[in-house]
Every structure is written in structure tokens, then in C-alpha cells.
């Protein structure tokens, strides 16, 4: 890995609800290098989105709270920043795009207004300069007729176009880190491929690091250099993308890879993972995957496995290797 840009250690983000404390993220360590694309993959409730929101300091408080840990961005702990300092960082140094662009764009402001807001806030441009910069930005997104599009409103655009606008807003200030939370999940397959291609080219041109969050293993394989596999708020395995897909070590990762239908599997019985995702108010003790794991031993239910490096750069949290 190149120079560290983001380094998270022992992050714990809990939600205090009437029914009890939801330990959504429970001791996650994660690193993103400069220029690197890192994937976080996991199912519902794995804590992948909460990890992203914690980095942005956007966890709704209450009920949520970052109770422990450290998020170092260029060596500075984001958890110690004031909200004013965070506002300067968001949109300029770290930006984020979400799954559903329609809910993130303001329906009563034109596209031009929404992109230029970033330039006005972070680049001290006046309105005219900002609109000009916005048009250039839209053009970079591969949108035809940028002059026309700046005057349009979100409802006039298709899903793919809206997501391009979101990307334009996110990349307007050439941030060092872009966090993308399921950015292509709501899009059609042929559009999805175009958006991924666009993101790939842009982050390369802008030298932006990308933290890509998705449940779709196909998207991870297409986009990422390194991958973290999350389950129930714990990191199960992390390594470079080839090792994770070709040489997975954690039973959960292997299970995930085996249970997706692939072209040519032709009605063969798919391997499944028995049981369902645990209740996060009362998560299983020890390894959180142990109730669903076919290799589970008694130690798995007692003790949370340490994450250990079993091959160079390949980390696994499983008692099989302990």
C-alpha cells in the first residue's frame, strides 16, 4: 500500500434505542492508501454504511454515537474535530455519494445551483464563476449539452444522469477521498457499467482515493484494489482483491462467493449460508459468524478471534488459523 490517507482503528459506533444498544460497528480497523480503491462488502446490518457515516461524522446523534476509536485522515483525528472544522473537510477533502440520487439532490434547486454551491462554499467563487465551473464539471461527467443540463431540475433527469450529477458535486473540489455507498445499486445494469467506468476514470484523473461500499461482489471485483469483508459490525477478512476472490480464507467470505448464481451454474443447487443475520442488540458472543459457520468450534462461541496476517497483506479473523 502507498502512503496512508485514512486509517481507522478500533471504531465503535453504537445506536442507543429503546430496545437496547445496537452495536452497529464494533471495533473496525480499516486503512485506505493514497490513490487506492478500497471496497467494503457485506450484507444488511454488517455496519458498512455506518462505518462510512462515522468517517464523515454524519452519524445521527442521538440515537447514534461514536463511542470509541480513532479515524486518522492525513494524520489528524477526525473524531476530535469541531463541527465547523468538519464542515470545511466535508465537500472539500472527503466527499460522499449515496445510493438514491433523487433523495440526495434538492428537488427545488437547479443542477447548476447545486454543483456551484460547492465551489462557492469551498473555493470562494462568485456565482458566475461557480456556474462556469459547474458546466465544466458536468462536461467531465460525459453529459451532452452541459449548458442545458445546468438549468434543469433533478426530476427532469434519468437515474443515471442524476448519479452523474451527484458524482460531479462530490468531485467538484477534487477531494482526496471519495466515499461511495452503494452508488450503482438503484441503477439498471447497462447504466451501472457506465457509471462504474466513469468513476474509475475520474478517480484516476483526479488522484482521488475511493472507499466503495456495496453488497455486490461483481462490483467489488470490477472496481477495487483491496477489499474488507464485514459481518455484523466486525471485519472478517481483508486483503487485495485477487486474494479475497481466488483464495478466500474466512468461511463467511467463501460462503458469500459460493452462494451467488454465476453464468453457467445451470440449476445446480447453490450453496447457502444457513440461518440469518444476527440481531445486533444481542449479537452472538465470540465470533459473530459462529452460529452460521459450519466450521464453528466451542472456542468460536467464547472468544472473538484476533485478526491475523496469514499471508502477506492477507488478514483473517477466524479461529481456524489461530
Amino acid at each position, binding site marked *: 500500500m502507498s502512503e496512508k490517507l485514512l486509517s481507522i482503528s478500533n471504531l465503535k459506533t453504537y445506536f442507543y434505542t429503546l430496545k437496547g444498544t445496537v452495536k452497529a460497528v464494533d471495533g473496525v480497523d480499516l486503512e485506505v492508501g493514497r490513490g487506492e480503491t478500497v471496497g467494503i462488502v457485506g450484507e444488511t446490518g454488517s455496519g458498512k454504511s455506518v462505518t462510512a457515516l462515522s468517517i464523515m461524522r454524519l452519524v445521527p446523534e442521538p440515537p447514534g454515537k461514536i463511542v470509541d476509536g480513532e479515524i486518522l485522515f492525513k494524520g489528524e483525528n477526525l473524531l476530535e474535530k469541531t463541527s465547523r472544522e468538519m464542515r470545511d473537510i466535508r465537500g472539500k477533502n472527503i466527499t460522499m455519494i449515496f445510493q438514491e440520487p433523487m433523495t440526495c439532490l434538492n428537488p427545488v434547486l437547479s443542477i447548476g445551483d447545486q454543483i456551484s454551491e460547492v465551489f462557492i462554499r469551498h473555493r470562494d467563487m462568485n456565482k458566475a464563476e461557480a456556474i462556469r465551473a459547474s458546466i465544466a464539471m458536468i462536461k467531465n461527467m460525459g453529459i451532452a449539452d452541459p449548458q442545458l443540463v445546468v438549468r434543469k431540475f433533478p426530476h427532469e433527469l434519468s437515474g443515471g444522469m442524476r448519479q452523474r450529477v451527484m458524482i460531479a458535486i462530490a468531485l467538484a473540489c477534487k477531494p482526496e477521498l471519495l466515499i461511495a455507498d452503494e452508488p450503482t445499486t438503484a441503477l439498471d*445494469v447497462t447504466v451501472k*457499467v457506465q457509471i*462504474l467506468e466513469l468513476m474509475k476514470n475520474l478517480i484516476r484523473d483526479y488522484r482521488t482515493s475511493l472507499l466503495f461500499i456495496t453488497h455486490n461482489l461483481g462490483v467489488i471485483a*470490477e472496481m477495487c484494489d483491496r477489499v474488507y469483508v464485514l459481518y455484523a459490525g466486525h471485519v472478517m477478512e481483508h486483503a487485495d482483491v485477487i486474494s479475497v476472490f481466488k483464495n478466500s480464507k474466512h468461511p463467511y467470505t467463501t460462503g458469500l462467493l459460493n452462494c451467488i*448464481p*454465476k*453464468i*453457467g451454474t445451470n440449476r445446480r*443447487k447453490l450453496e*447457502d449460508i444457513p440461518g440469518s443475520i444476527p440481531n445486533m442488540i444481542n449479537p452472538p458472543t465470540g465470533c459473530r459468524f459462529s452460529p452460521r459457520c459450519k466450521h464453528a468450534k466451542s472456542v468460536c462461541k467464547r472468544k472473538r478471534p484476533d485478526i491475523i496476517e496469514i499471508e502477506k497483506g492477507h488478514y483473517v479473523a477466524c479461529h481456524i488459523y489461530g
Partner: protein
Amino acid sequence: MENLLEIRDLVKHFPLRGGIFMRRTRVVRAVDGISFNIRKGETFGLVGESGCGKTTVGRLILRLIEPTSGNIIFYGRNITKLKKKLRKLRCDMQIVFQDPFASLNPRMTIENIIEEPIKNFNLFKGEDRKKRVRELLEKVGLEAEFMRRYPHELSGGQRQRVAIARALAVNPKFIVLDEPTSNLDVSVQARILNDFMKLQSELGLTYLFISHDLAIIDHLADRVLVMYLGNMMELSTKRDLFRSPKHPYTKALLGSILKADPDIKIEKPAIFGDVPSPINPPHGCSFHTRCQYVQDICKEMKPKIVEIDKGHYVSCHYPL
């Protein structure tokens, strides 16, 4: 093989109302003249992007919505105009919806949900009915203790299995599966897909499987229909469709599959642009605005669907 269903020139236009008197202003051409057969015992895959009309086709076949024109023939009987006898038909045709949150009544217990169709058709009474509900739960892999629970106590996968049990309650011959796993996690999806295959061979069911996910269609289907903006693009056996697609759109869809293999990357997007609005679909071939092989004739004339190989139909002026 015998045809279970024959669909002839099925059309559905949804009127859009607007203006101060809510007059019909325009129509959405959701389904614009499609014809196909579904054979007894097969899994017929229907694939396409959003707005292609795949869900509308499923609902038209079940007569949940009324077609604008065209005919639906089920077991040799034209069911397009059935009125009173339609109720009886529900015993033969059932549906599993995409969102198991929305399709189960939150105020009913699982037992009530599953026994409702049994009651409606007077199939079993008293203890027998209870036994039947238990049997159905067992078939979909849920324990009998779920009978007293409510939908909110169940996970997404469990809820979807309840929806399947409810569909099976009246012993249907044909089930429409409308994106039944797209709201589920992959580890849960695998089990539901396995269940569908198992139930099909046990009960001799015929499926119409609607999905946008080509990998699932390839996994389950025997024959596949590709739709785009309400039109049929290509229809063939799964094998032929995936090995030698004849329609440029099918080829583009296949080229957009993201494989869970970091060694196989998509070099460049197969097609550009978004799906046009079905309110104002392109003239001629509906795909011509995004087709890389487009010629002048494609912009003016809608291609007819022709059989270019045995059982392989394509609607394109210049098939690949």
C-alpha cells in the same frame, strides 16, 4: 411440450391524466404487442431493465390488471374476458411479489396469512386446515412455531418464504415470481432459489420468473424473453440466448454482467445512454437510440419478430 399459456399480441397502455379536467393526455406504452408461449413445467425467464414492462406482463397474465388488447390463453381457454369465473382461476395461478414487507398484512399472524386463500376457496376446514398450514410451512422450510408469529418478527428471507407458502396454499399450476429475491441478501437468496427449484420438481409447477439479474435468469430459466420498452427483443432457449445472442440489446445486456472475478473486467461499457422514457419511446425500433449497429431503416420501421433459428426469435432488422 404442451403449452400452459399462450400470449397473443398483448398490449397495455396506461393513460396519463393531466390538465385541469384530468383528461387523458398521453399514454405510457408499458406493453406494446407481445406474443409468446409458456410450456408446462418450464421456468420461463423474463428479463429487462426498468420500464421495459416485465412486471406489467406478469400482472396482465394473472388478470390483476386489464389488457388494452390481446389474448391470454391458459390451458387452451381464453381467459382475457373472464369475469365470474376469474375467481376460480386464482386457484391455478398465483404470484410472489418482490417486497415481502409490503405483500404481507402486518396485522395478521403467519397462520392467518397462509390460511386465507384456503378459506377463500373452501379447500380445508378445521383441524385439516391447520394441518395444511403446517404442511405448507414445512415445505418452505419454516417450523410450525412460526404460525403464531407476525410478519414484523420475521427476517426478509423468512417473510418471502411465507409469501411462497401462501402462493402454494391453493395448489396452483403456475406461479409468477416477480423479482422475488431482489430485496434479499445474497446468502438468503441462494436458499430461496434452491427452494424454487425443489418445489418445482416436487409439485410440477410452471414458473414465470421476472428479473433484471441475468445471472439468476441463467441459473434458473429454461427459456428467456428479453424485453425493452414494452417490446420483445429476443426469445429463445437460455442456452442459445447466452451462447449466441442475436439482438444487439441482448448482447449489450450480457456484456454488462459484472462477474465476481477480479481477472475478468469489463473493458468498456457495451452501450451508452439511459433507457428512454416509455411515455415517449423512440420511433421504429425502440432500441435504435442506443444501438451501435443502427441504420436508417431502424429509425423508421419497427422490426417484426422472426424465427431465425429453431425456437430462436429476434426482433431486429440486422440480427447479429
